[in-house]
């Protein structure tokens, strides 16, 4: 630890609070390493195929890979499916979890602990693991190859219930009392007091949920057969199926295309994202 030499300079904290230059260097190296796949993808996607495996600074830029990728598979449809899917799942999760969490947080009823334990089971055993049985269920109810089939098993999210319950419990009971004294019903109180107060948690959860389901692969792979219901990930995998011989340029272009919405959203909102995580107290 070294101390700042010049105390007459602009105010600054003392050394015990500062990371050393070695830390900074290491942190940056690791960051570059972590970015490498993305950097490579950007490089390849924006250059002609000949440069996919060669890094030459003089390589010309092109958008042709994106054009080719876009035409090679029904990406527009995939985007539509994924967007719809993610929105549907998120809406259902938020609605169901809000109601359930409120019941767990503020009502005392018989079997509450048992019910909560049942919810917690799903934290561990996620629907992905139970794909064989869930597939059978979907087949029985005739939902295979539809967006609801992809979404249904995730509609009731134990994680969301757990998180919201924690949050609701941490909301001062007095706010609930105040709302009741002011004449609000239980649902009014939930909607006008609890939900707005849990906003950071909703944001954090929404981001986790959206990125999880935008990226989810195995279950959609199994329950979808056709373009009608196929989400981006499955479309991308079929598109880049290694058997065809790998055209890195077009695959990276497609990869960037399909992750762009999340990536851009994250870049734009990364501050809020990290903060809402912190405020949500997910820890």
């Amino acid at each position, binding site marked *: 630890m070294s101390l700042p030499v010049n105390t007459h300079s602009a105010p600054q904290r003392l050394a015990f609070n500062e990371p050393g230059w070695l830390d900074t260097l290491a942190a940056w190296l690791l960051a570059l390493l972590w970015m*490498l796949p993305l950097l490579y993808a950007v490089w390849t996607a924006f250059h002609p195929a000949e440069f996919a495996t060669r890094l030459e600074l003089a390589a010309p830029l092109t958008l042709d890979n994106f054009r080719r990728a876009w035409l090679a598979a029904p990406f527009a449809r995939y985007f539509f499916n994924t967007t719809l899917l993610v929105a549907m799942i998120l809406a259902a999760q938020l609605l169901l979890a809000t109601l359930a969490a409120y019941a767990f947080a503020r009502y005392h009823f018989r079997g509450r602990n048992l019910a909560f334990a049942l919810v917690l089971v799903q934290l561990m055993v996620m629907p992905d693991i139970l794909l064989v049985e869930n597939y059978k269920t979907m087949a029985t109810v005739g939902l295979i190859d539809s967006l609801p089939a992809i979404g249904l098993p995730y509609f009731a999210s134990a994680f969301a219930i757990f998180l919201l319950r924690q949050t609701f419990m941490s909301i001062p009971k007095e706010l609930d009392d105040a709302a009741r004294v002011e004449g609000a019903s239980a649902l009014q109180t939930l909607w006008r007091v609890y939900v707005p107060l849990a906003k950071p948690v909703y944001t954090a959860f929404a981001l986790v949920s959206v990125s999880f389901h935008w990226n989810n692969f195995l279950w959609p792979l199994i329950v979808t057969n056709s373009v009608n219901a196929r989400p981006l990930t499955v479309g991308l995998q079929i598109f880049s199926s290694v058997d065809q011989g790998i055209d890195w340029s077009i695959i990276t272009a497609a990869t960037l295309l399909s*992750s762009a919405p999340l990536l851009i959203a994250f870049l734009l909102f990364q501050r809020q994202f990290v903060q809402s995580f912190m405020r949500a107290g997910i820890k």
Partner: protein
Amino acid sequence: MLLPALVLLLAFTHWPIVSTLVDSFFSTPKGARASVWVGLDNYAVMVADPVFWKAMRNNLWFAGVTIPLSISLALVMALWVNERMLGRAFLRMAYFTPTVLPMIAVANIWLFFYTPQYGLLEQISAALGLPSHNWLGSPSTALGAVTLVAVWKEAGFFMIFYLAALQSQNPSLREAAAIEGASRWTFFWRVQWPLLMPTTVFVLVNAFINGFRMVDHLFVLTRGGPDNASTLLLFYLYEVGFSFWDTAYAAAITVVLVSILVGMALLQFFVLDRKVHYQ
């Protein structure tokens, strides 16, 4: 209020768990042949199935490496970006980015990194004059290669949790420790780390679940090969269930997977949780 959520949970979590267990005692129906009670036959097949054991061993190795590695990296990242460091916002973003990228998509990029002869690793090792290596094509490195991808994917996600926890720690603890003469290192080991324990448990549980759930990249990178060197339980389950259509055997494998996860849940509930909460 609780009903809709509970019904869905019952339908897609609890019922499948029970019916998986039941199915694992029956044979697979095929075409005209209906399924019949076979007792423990499916488990006997499992015990004798070298691929299952290979998948199990691989999965334990995969989890055993991914969990500590991604968690310790996450911790280091969080400690870094928690401090006032040059380009902190960029660093946070860089570490976190893998989390938002679809695994199935980035696996294609990693495939390029690992490709023999002209892949990135090859180009780097060539530049350094190292011998070339077929990373995904050799049994000795295939599993390691897919594990590395998992670590890359997970660390940033866990970092966020650590970061959130660090930020909620009382900043005067650091000052108090400084006054008491503690170095940064002492402060970390004696104050920050113990206080992060609940987060570590949370992250640990998540890492554990992911250790048995993350198989997307296998579809692109190795498909479990070569010679099952990189196959994992869930991937094998997928193959048995949807490639071989042996649903009864798949049920038995599911039962094993569920038992592992539930076992972990109980361990966490009864052991870890007790020890780490201070408030």
